């Protein structure tokens, strides 16, 4: 397999810089990648590379990466992996935010003695009894 080009050669100008010590600095927009996604991605890679994070101009974060081997192609490989991990982690963060409400309701239902959601997954007002919807799934859990 042919060697990957360095991010500094393949990404738009200024997005990646290579330093004399072999490290690569990636400039990331927080409009695209949240700080949470950036931190998770760093955490995944700290066994393979050294990482330094710093805020840049407004809305940007600089992540400097250097493979622990000090090898330039290895640093490039880690940097590409980091960019892929960012997409992965950002997707996880977005899904987590989008599904936070339903997740909280499911957890509340699991630990509650009374129904907090009906057969359709709709919230039940406290004190009211959920109606039976014949077309819905009516058994939530195995009957003991």
């Amino acid at each position, binding site marked *: 397999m042919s060697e990957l080009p360095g991010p500094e050669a393949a990404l738009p100008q200024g997005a990646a*810089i*290579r*330093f*004399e*010590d072999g*490290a690569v*600095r990636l400039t990331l927009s927080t409009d695209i990648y949240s*700080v*949470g996604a950036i*931190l*998770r991605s*760093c*955490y995944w890679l*700290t066994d393979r590379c*050294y*990482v*330094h*994070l*710093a*805020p840049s101009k407004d809305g940007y974060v600089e992540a*400097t990466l*250097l493979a622990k081997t000090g090898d330039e192609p290895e640093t490039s490989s880690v940097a590409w992996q980091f960019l892929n991990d960012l997409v992965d982690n950002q997707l996880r963060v977005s899904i987590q935010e989008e599904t936070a409400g339903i997740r909280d309701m499911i957890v509340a239902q699991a630990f509650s003695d009374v129904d907090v959601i009906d057969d359709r997954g709709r919230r039940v007002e406290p004190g009211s009894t959920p109606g039976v919807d014949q077309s819905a799934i009516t058994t939530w859990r195995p009957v003991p």
Partner: protein
Amino acid sequence: MATSALSEQPVVLYHSFYDEDCLRSASEAYKSFADVSIEPGDGLSRVTINAIPGASDAVTVRREFLNYVLDLSIKKHLAS
């Protein structure tokens, strides 16, 4: 092109990523390997990491220390 922040001494650690308590904990944990001095600034700390002679390669100790502080800070961030 100059060297990166991973080779700078002192290195600037911004509190938005590097938690101050974690920095102090890491400094304590590394006292057998390095003498760490922390100069507080506005939203950042300037950190000088001097490996204890005979411990390990000085540059490696500095970089491992930075990774350790970051790991601690991320764990704290994700747990909150």
